[in-house]
């Protein structure tokens, strides 16, 4: 029968029927239902199996504190495990599956665990799976994990997008129940920027679940009117479906908005969820309270629920778990459930009230001074066993049992910065206390004001106080103000398999065992029994566990203390933390000015930091990257090649002390560098280790352009700013990065000058005499475009670097290609660049690896003794200057057909191969098309004196052993004739 347990009334859209499936079976619900309310309306109580014992379970609650009704939502790549049916908003086409059962929910083979519960008590695996030790990881743990699992992952990439965002307000109100709504109204009417966030899709909190009145109108109407008023205020932002998951430093709150979870699939371009960072100088926590259960044997059968949850289902969702319901309570609230159910036509089997002086009722039977001691029913509740006040037993037939043990204020967010709640004797509950997160105050049930009147008045007053609003507090609407009398009643005497933590299957017996075995501190109790360690963080279980531990230890509950609540308040999808930062959007990409041209040429790109650089440019017929790279090297060395070197860091250094500043920064001298000249410079760290190298070009007396390696561009700039601001604040020097402002191309090879002469305006003489090696100048090209020209060479050839404003970079590259056609100009990528610099013996990142000094790099004499520069003193440390220090050398294989690989170590020709006999290591290796065999650069002890020596290059990792000869690092043109040509 369709929706057999659907009642009248409620806040659901009966005009809209929504179809959904649970475990493959079709059901119907309505707009405004949750999955749990719709299933209850369809007479489905059994929604899951428990974690450890695979006991049948149904919903305990109607909210985010739910421990039992945990399902897998959706299918395919969108399948999401461990989702609470009590908060999953129903939509047309929703599919849900129960989890942690096999083969089916009704018959679960793993329920055998329940029969062996005596062996599976708290800590059983610590005691059982002791031997042999090696079995733990390989055998025991996988089996336990498989048996005690929750849901399963789809193992597919999440197809949905997640956003991150930032919001600011004067007052953040967390929770839109009576206190939160009243606070938001108070602040909003005063014109303050207010954010009101609530995890529910319908604001109003408990007002939507009760039959109370505010100002003589139904409380739900007051809530709806308040929400309407707030949504009309431009300074108030309502954030339904938004869970504030954590209170972080400096008034920053994390909040997850479930933007599209109530839809079948997110609308195009819209995120599934958004993780908001809310900046709030003042926060008002109005998180309400959670009803607490009472522990008795078999209190986990589907149908045993919190009394307030049954009330919510009946009043808000017009659904009931059964047609005949009993209530077990220690306070007046349980009676409310009975009255509301009666009004909806549900039969009340009895109200079992532990208090001998419980109020009487005409409409239903009240069993005063009685207790429910056990339940029966295979896959759901059928009978409750009641022990009457006189000790006799009575069996009550009922399909559901509402349990009320009083209310616990939701203090969680007050504890996220290690605050500890304090015990309130009058409520027999913990309330916010101690040090709250700065700027936070608490109102409503969350602070123990459990009546509607209390919530409204504390909400208004707290908002007024938090914002320092002047004037009289406006009158709050009239509402019930029932006195609260909560006498503690945590569990039924003599019970054993009475569930405290239903999600982690922790019973009263487990807590007793923990105490018996000496795990008595509350933190030990938590870890030993796993009480409160499930995804619900023990929202319905912690208090019970603490109370029992306190009793066993002969202490008061506050003496036992509480464990720490941590963010997130409720389970949060990892995707929400990642936001858009995944896949190709993991980091921004930097494109060189010649990128689009290179792409047209079919370049193969490589990521260098965030840059995409052309690695090589394959041409038709080339099937292997080496063919392309060898061709590019040969063509450049024989005629002319062009490479985009924009990515090298460029830092503009200006000021009257610019030269003096660089003199401090670089270990070699810069003070006397002439205008129009460029110099290679080496920067040391304070500790004397080489940091970065590059060139500095003096364009004017007070103007240099410094280049850095691509990888270190930001770090060097940061270092230079530190030096400028902190070490030499008295120097007149100004710095700014211009890396991206200029497209810079290396034009290298014997025909490079001829090519450039076709581009550079005739007014500028770039002959060897007019523009010698290491010259630099501001010039114009192509008929007047401002440009910079540097005669520097990384390849070892006659070479220039030419720079133009980035927007013209693409056009310049195309121009160089067309003008260079007569020289067979060849674009080359980073691989050919690397090969040529290894052939020339130029150090790069592999050599400047954070352990090497100028001495190691063969540039010891560059460190000027005539001046003080950063790192120069510490580079003189004896440990860095030993006689057999590592010196950069070249290596080549004795047999030219053999390979050389970077990372290998140099050992003597004979003798042991181990760390004690290590002579050095290879940092860079490449096939040299110029020489016809592989070559390498590396560091060798006393290397300068060992040219011609034969050694073994060994790499135990790659099982390489090659006989090599130590050579000069300058394999090509060691005299430097080409670059000065």
């Amino acid at each position, binding site marked *: 029968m369709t929706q057999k347990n659907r009642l009248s009334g409620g806040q659901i859209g009966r005009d809209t029927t929504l179809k959904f499936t649970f475990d493959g079976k079709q059901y119907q619900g309505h707009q405004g239902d949750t999955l749990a309310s719709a299933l209850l309306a369809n007479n489905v109580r059994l929604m899951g199996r428990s974690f450890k014992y695979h006991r049948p379970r149904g919903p305990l609650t109607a909210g985010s504190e739910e421990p039992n009704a945990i399902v897998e939502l959706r299918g395919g790549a969108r399948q999401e495990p461990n989702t609470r049916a009590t908060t999953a908003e129903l939509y047309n086409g929703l599919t849900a599956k129960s989890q942690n059962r096999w083969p089916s929910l009704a018959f679960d083979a793993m329920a055998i665990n329940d029969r062996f519960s005596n062996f599976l008590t708290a800590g059983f695996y610590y005691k059982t799976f002791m031997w042999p030790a090696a079995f733990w990881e390989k055998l025991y743990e996988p089996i336990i994990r498989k048996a005690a699992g929750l849901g399963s992952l789809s193992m597919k990439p999440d197809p949905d997008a997640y*956003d991150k965002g*930032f919001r600011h307000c004067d007052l953040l109100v967390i929770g839109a129940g009576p206190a939160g709504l009243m606070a938001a109204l108070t602040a909003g009417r005063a014109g303050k920027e207010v954010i009101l966030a609530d995890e529910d899709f319908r604001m109003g909190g408990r007002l939507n679940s009760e039959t109370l009145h505010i100002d003589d109108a139904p409380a739900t109407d007051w809530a709806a009117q308040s929400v309407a008023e707030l949504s009309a205020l431009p300074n108030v932002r309502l954030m339904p479906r938004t869970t504030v998951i954590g209170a972080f430093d400096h008034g920053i709150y994390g909040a997850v908005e479930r933007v599209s979870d109530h839809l079948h699939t997110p609308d195009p371009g*819209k995120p599934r969820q958004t993780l908001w960072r809310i900046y709030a100088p003042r926060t008002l926590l109005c998180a309400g309270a959670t009803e607490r259960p009472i522990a008795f044997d078999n209190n986990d059968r589907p149908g045993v629920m919190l009394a307030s949850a049954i009330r919510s289902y009946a009043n808000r969702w017009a659904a009931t778990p059964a047609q005949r319901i009993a209530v077990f309570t220690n306070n007046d609230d349980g009676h409310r459930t009975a009255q509301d159910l009666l009004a909806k036509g549900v039969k009340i089997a009895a109200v079992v009230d532990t208090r001998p002086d419980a109020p009487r009722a005409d409409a239903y039977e009240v069993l005063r001074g009685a207790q429910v001691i056990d339940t029966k029913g295979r896959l759901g509740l059928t009978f409750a066993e009641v022990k009457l006040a006189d000790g006799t037993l009575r069996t009550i037939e009922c399909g559901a049992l509402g349990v009320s043990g009083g209310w616990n204020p939701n203090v969680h967010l007050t504890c996220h910065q290690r605050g500890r709640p304090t015990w309130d004797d009058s409520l027999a509950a913990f309330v916010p206390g101690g040090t709250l997160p700065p700027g936070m105050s608490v109102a409503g049930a969350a602070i123990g004001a459990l009546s509607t009147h209390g919530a409204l008045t504390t909400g208004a007053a707290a908002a007024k106080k938090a914002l320092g609003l002047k004037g009289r507090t406006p009158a709050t609407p009239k509402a019930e103000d029932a006195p609260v009398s909560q006498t503690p009643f945590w569990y039924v005497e003599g019970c054993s398999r009475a569930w405290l933590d239903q999600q982690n299957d922790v019973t009263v017996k487990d807590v007793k065992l923990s105490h018996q075995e000496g795990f008595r501190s509350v933190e030990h109790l938590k870890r030993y029994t796993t009480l409160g360690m499930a995804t619900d963080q023990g929202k319905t279980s912690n208090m019970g566990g603490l109370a029992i531990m306190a009793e066993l230890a002969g202490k008061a509950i506050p003496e036992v203390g509480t464990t720490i609540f941590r963010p997130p308040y409720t389970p949060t999808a990892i995707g929400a933390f990642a936001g*858009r930062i995944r896949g190709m959007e993991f980091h921004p990409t930097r494109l060189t000015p010649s990128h689009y041209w290179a792409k047209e040429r079919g370049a193969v790109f490589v990521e260098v930091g965030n840059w995409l650089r052309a690695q090589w440019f394959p041409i038709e017929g080339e099937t292997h990257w080496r063919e392309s790279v060898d061709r590019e090297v040969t063509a450049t060395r024989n005629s002319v090649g062009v490479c985009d070197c924009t990515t090298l860091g460029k830092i503009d250094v200006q000021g009257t002390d610019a030269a003096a500043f660089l003199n401090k920064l670089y270990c070699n001298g810069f003070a006397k560098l002439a205008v129009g000249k460029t110099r290679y410079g080496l920067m040391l760290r304070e500790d004397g280790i080489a940091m970065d190298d590059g060139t500095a070009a003096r364009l004017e007396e007070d103007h240099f352009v410094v280049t850095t390696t691509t990888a270190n561009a930001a770090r060097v700039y940061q270092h230079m700013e530190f030096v400028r601001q902190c070490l030499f604040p008295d120097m007149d*020097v*100004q710095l700014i990065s211009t890396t991206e*402002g200029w497209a810079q191309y290396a034009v290298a090879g014997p025909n490079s000058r001829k090519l450039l002469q076709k581009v550079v305006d005739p007014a500028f003489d770039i002959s060897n005499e007019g523009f010698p090696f290491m010259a630099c100048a501001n010039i*114009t090209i192509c008929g007047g475009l401002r440009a910079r020209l540097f005669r520097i060479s990384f390849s070892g050839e006659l070479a220039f670097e030419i720079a133009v404003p980035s*927007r013209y970079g693409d056009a310049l590259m195309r121009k160089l290609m067309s003008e260079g056609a007569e020289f067979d100009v060849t674009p080359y990528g980073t691989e050919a660049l690397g090969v040529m610099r290894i052939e020339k013996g130029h150090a790069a990142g592999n050599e400047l690896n954070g352990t090497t000094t100028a001495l190691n790099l063969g540039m010891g004499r560059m460190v000027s003794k005539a001046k003080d520069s950063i790192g120069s003193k510490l580079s003189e440390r004896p440990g860095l200057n030993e006689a057999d220090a590592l010196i950069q050398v070249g290596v080549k294989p004795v047999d030219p057909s053999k390979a050389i690989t970077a990372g290998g170590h140099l050992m003597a020709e004979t003798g042991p191969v181990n760390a004690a006999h290590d002579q050095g290591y290879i940092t860079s290796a490449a096939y040299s098309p110029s020489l016809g065999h592989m070559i390498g650069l590396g560091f060798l002890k006393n290397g300068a004196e060992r040219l011609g020596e034969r050694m073994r290059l060994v790499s135990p990792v790659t099982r390489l052993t090659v006989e090599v000869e130590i050579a000069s690092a300058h394999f090509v043109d060691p005299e430097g004739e080409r670059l000065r040509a």
Partner: protein
Amino acid sequence: MHDLSPLTPLGGTAPQIDTVADLTCTEQCDLALASVAARLGQEKACAAALQKLLGAAPPVAGKAHLAAPYSAVWAGPDQWMLGADFATHEDIAAQLKAALKDTASITEQTDAWCCFDLSGEGIAAVMELLCPVNMRALASGDATRTTIHHLGCFVICGDPNGFVRILGPRASAGSLHHAILTAMRSAL
């Protein structure tokens, strides 16, 4: 006149314009930029020269001076980014040098940045997905540096309800543009 054709930061020959709902994102290419940093000991002279140039005191931290021909944004202590129309100020660095002389170091920054103008409805909703700047509290002439999609950017508020300019690193124009459009499609 040289014969090299420029490309926009997004790699086109004309600025890209995208509209989502009632908000338009325009790739702004008619913008010349230069940094101005006062020389040591010349801070007052530099500020005075700037005042003469701008017709107003140079902007303080968090502020921009929005005017023609020159606009200015505070970029650091005694440092500003000046902007003008590219068509008339391609040589902005030289023009500024002539005006400020040796009171400041001036560096051309025109092509170091890309610029996206957001105009229309829904700016605050888009910006709150991009950066921690509180758009709802910004007024015309407010400017700040922030990060958008890991990129260091300037956000300059022309009209909190109608116009915002974002300057970001030129080489990452594609990534920045993608982030802005993604936020527009998400928020609007």
